[in-house]
C-alpha cells in the first residue's frame, strides 16, 4: 500500500493548497476513491472490519481533513485545532487511512489494523492512535463528547470548530437526542453535526429497523439550525458546498444531513446491510477492487 495523493503535482502540500474549487473537489473525490481501495485491501487482508460505514463516509472524512479542518498532524494535541469526533466508530478503517495520509502516522501501519499490539484498534482509541479525538465504537457517545469540546472552546476563549460525524445507528441511541437537546440549550459556537445518512444499519434498512424520518424536521424541532437542503455526501464538491454553509455563521448548533450510500463504490455492496461488517473474501475482493479501480480511472481522467 503506497500512499497516493492525487491532484496537481500529486503531493499532499499541493492538494492542501489547491485554491480552485473544482480542481480541489475532483482531487478529493479521487483521494476518497483511493482510500476506498486501501480500506478494501486492509479489510480483505485482515479478514475483519467494517466496509459499509467506512465507504459511506469517505468523501466526508477526506473533505474535513484535507480541506475544512485546521489541524497540525505534527502536533496532534495542538490546543487550537479543529476537532472531529467520529461517533460512528465502525468507520475506523477509513478514519485511520485518512489520518495516516494526512500525516498523523505512517501509512505502512494501516496493515496492522485490528491486529494484536497495533495502535489501530477495531474501533478508534484516542489513547493509542494520533489524531483520534475520542474513543468511540459504542454508539451514541459522540455528540455529547463533542458538545463538551465545543463548550470548552467557549470557556477557554478558543475559536476552533468541533464536528461530530454520526451514522444511522447513532441516531437510534437515546443519548444522541439528550445531547441534541443540551446543545440547543447551551448553544456553543462552531459546533456541527454531520450526519452520514445512508439509511442502512447493521440489521437492515433503517426504515425497517428504526425509521428516523423526518430527520430535518426532528432536528429543527430540537432548535438546531439544519442545512437548507440535503447534500450528496459521496460527492466531494457537494461536501465542500455543505461545509461552506456550515462556516457561513456560528450562532449555535448546526446539522448537515448527507444522502450517502452504505458500501459506496462497489455496486453489489451498496445500500445493503450485508456488507456492514462481513468478511471480504478473496473472490469478493477481486470483484470489488476491479470496480473501485475502474471508477478511479474515470475520476483521474477528470483531474
Amino acid at each position, binding site marked *: 500500500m503506497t500512499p497516493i495523493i492525487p491532484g496537481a503535482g500529486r503531493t499532499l502540500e499541493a492538494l492542501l493548497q489547491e485554491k480552485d474549487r473544482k480542481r480541489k473537489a475532483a482531487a478529493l473525490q479521487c483521494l476518497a476513491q483511493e482510500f476506498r481501495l486501501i480500506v478494501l485491501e486492509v479489510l480483505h487482508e485482515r479478514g475483519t472490519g467494517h466496509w459499509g460505514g467506512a465507504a459511506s463516509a469517505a468523501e466526508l472524512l477526506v473533505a474535513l481533513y484535507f480541506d475544512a479542518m485546521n489541524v497540525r498532524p505534527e502536533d496532534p494535541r495542538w490546543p487550537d485545532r479543529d476537532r472531529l469526533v467520529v461517533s460512528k466508530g465502525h468507520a475506523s478503517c477509513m478514519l485511520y487511512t485518512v489520518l495516516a495520509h494526512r500525516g498523523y502516522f505512517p501509512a505502512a501501519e494501516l496493515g496492522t489494523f485490528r491486529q494484536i499490539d497495533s495502535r489501530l484498534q477495531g474501533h478508534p482509541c484516542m489513547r493509542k492512535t494520533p489524531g483520534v479525538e475520542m474513543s468511540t465504537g459504542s454508539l451514541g*457517545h459522540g455528540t*455529547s463528547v463533542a458538545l463538551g469540546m465545543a*463548550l470548552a472552546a467557549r470557556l*477557554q476563549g478558543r475559536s476552533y470548530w468541533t464536528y461530530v460525524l454520526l451514522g444511522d445507528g447513532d441516531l437510534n441511541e437515546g*443519548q444522541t437526542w*439528550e445531547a441534541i*437537546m443540551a446543545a440547543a440549550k447551551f448553544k456553543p459556537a462552531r459546533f456541527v453535526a454531520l450526519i452520514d445518512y445512508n439509511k442502512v444499519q447493521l440489521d437492515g434498512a433503517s426504515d425497517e429497523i428504526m425509521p428516523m424520518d423526518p430527520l430535518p424536521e426532528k432536528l429543527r424541532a430540537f432548535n438546531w439550525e439544519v442545512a437548507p437542503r440535503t447534500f450528496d455526501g459521496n460527492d466531494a464538491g457537494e461536501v465542500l458546498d455543505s461545509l461552506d454553509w456550515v462556516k457561513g455563521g456560528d450562532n449555535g448548533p448546526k446539522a448537515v444531513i448527507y444522502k450517502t450510500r452504505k458500501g459506496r463504490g462497489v455496486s453489489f455492496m451498496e445500500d445493503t446491510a450485508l456488507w456492514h461488517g462481513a468478511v471480504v473474501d478473496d473472490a469478493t475482493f477481486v470483484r470489488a477492487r476491479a470496480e473501485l479501480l475502474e471508477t478511479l480511472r474515470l475520476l483521474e481522467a477528470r483531474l
Partner: protein
Amino acid sequence: MNPAPVAMRDAFGEALLALAAEVPEMVVLDADVSTSTRTAAFGQRHPGRFFNVGVAEANMVDIAAGLATCGLRPVVSTFALFLTLKAADQVRNIICYNKLPVVLAGSYAGLSDSYDGASHQAILDIAMMRAMPNLTVVVPADGVELRQALAAALRRDGPVYIRICRNPTPVLFADAPPLEIGRIRKLRDGRDLTIAVCGVPTSMAIEAAGRLAGRGVSVDLLEVATIKPIDVQCLADSARKTGRVLTVEEHTVHGGLGGAVAEVVGRHAPALMRFVGIGDTFAESGPYDALLVKYGVSVERIESEAMQIMASGRG
C-alpha cells in the same frame, strides 16, 4: 466533645466553592438534582462554569469527558445510583478507557436516600466502579475526608469516583492527618482481629472495636477510604498478624469492600473472613438509621460477627 454531625453532601457543596479559585479549570455538571447534591451554590456563584444538563446522566458524563480532553477538570454530580448505572457505559467506554480526569461524585449513596426507597439506593456502586480499569474509588467516612478526597481527586491524573452520603454523620477526622488516596488509615492497633471498614459505618466500627476490647478482643481497625487502588501492604500485614478479617460496608457484600479485601487477603495473607454489609437483596423506604440496622449494618452486627469469627479456628 465531638463536633456536630455534618452531611457529606453539605461538605461537598462547600468544598466546591472553596476550591473554585484554587482550581480554575474546575467545572461542575449536575443532572437536575443540584439543590439535593449541593452543587447549586457553585452554579449560582460561577454560572459560566456550571452546567445543569437536565435529567440526562449519560449525556452529562460524556460532556464532562469532552471538557476534560480540552484541559478542564469536570466534577459530575448526581445520585450515585443514576451515575453508576445509567451512565455505566459512559463511565467505562469514555471516561475510564481514555483515563480522563473527571471526578464522578455519587451522592445519596448507600441507603442514605432512605425514604425514596430501593429505586434510589446505591448499594452496588462500589462493586461497579471498582471493576472499571483506570478508575480510583474513594469512600470517605466523614465530611472532612470528603473535602480532602475532592481536593486530591482534582489533582489526580485520571478519573476518580467519590461516594457521598446524603445525611449528617459524625465528624471523625477533624484533627487527623489528611486522607491520602491509596493509604489505609489505622484507627486502632490490635492483634486478634482485623476490621476493615469504609464510609459511614466507620463510626460504628470504632464503637464496636471499643466494645470488643472490653470482651478481650484486640482489634486492628483499618479505615479503607480508597477501595481502588487498595493499600495491599497494610491489609496483608494486618491479616498476617491477626489471621482473621472482618469487613464492614454500607453496600452489598458481593463485590464491594469485602470483595476487594478478600482479593488481597486470599492472595497475600490467607485468613478467615466474614462480611458485614447488605445481603443479596433490595432494601426499602424508611428512616436511615433503622434501614441500616434492618439491612445488617450496625454496631451490634459488627460485634456479633466479630465474636463469631473469633470463635472459629485461626485461619
